């Protein structure tokens, strides 16, 4: 099962993409897995809108949700920005970063998901692919 949406770069639109994920996955994915997947998606979208597209409301963010029932949930978020080097990010747990206001988004994404990979998007900006192995659906 696959669903796609493209949104303009405003924070309100994060809700739209999250809603699509919930509609696609709700009846197939365990509540716990879905909660953390949705949180990871929100972080990836916020990064794409803020750091990728620099809050330019005319630039779009492309979201693809792919669900292999009982096996794996894959979410891809692509922006039209200038690319991003995840290697430059510090550890938010280190003493010098602990009280910083920002710099935790990618760390959380990596914690919430099983696999995270960054690459260049065909749309010109960054592409982040998030994968979660699925547990059984709640009864």
């Amino acid at each position, binding site marked *: 099962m696959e669903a796609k949406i493209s949104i303009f770069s405003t924070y309100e639109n994060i809700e739209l993409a999250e809603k699509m994920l919930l509609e696609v996955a709700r009846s197939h994915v365990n509540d716990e897995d879905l909660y953390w997947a949705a949180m990871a998606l929100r972080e990836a979208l916020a990064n794409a809108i803020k750091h990728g597209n620099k809050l330019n409301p005319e630039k779009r963010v492309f979201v693809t949700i792919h669900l292999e029932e009982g096996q794996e949930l894959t979410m891809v978020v692509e922006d039209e920005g200038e690319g991003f080097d995840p290697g430059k990010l510090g550890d938010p747990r280190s003493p010098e970063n*602990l*009280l910083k*206001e920002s710099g935790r988004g990618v760390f959380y994404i990596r914690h919430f998901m099983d696999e995270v990979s960054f690459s260049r998007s065909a749309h010109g900006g960054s592409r982040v692919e998030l994968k979660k192995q699925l547990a059984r659906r709640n009864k």
Partner: protein
Amino acid sequence: MKGSFRDVQGVRVLDLSGKITIGVGDVELRRLVEEALASGKTNILVNLKDVTHIDSSGIGELVACYTTVKRRGGSMKLLNLPPKINDILQVTQLITVFDVFANEAEAIQSFTA
């Protein structure tokens, strides 16, 4: 996010609910803390009992509020962490930064202890 406040024995209690997320909840949290400081309330207890989601921007705003209040000679503590919000604070070790309470009366008392 919805937020309201009460003053209990000189402590400003912020009752938050819903999502503390980028662009909405984080802004509202900052507004409530700035309003408390503007009215001379430097001891702030943030009640997270009905908060369902907090993202990295919301966490960043909590940290920013914590340091702002501390700079003003006050303190900001957390009350009633839901399990998922607790997990989120644990992962980034911020749980070691905040004083966290499960009981409001004890939390209020701690400001004068």
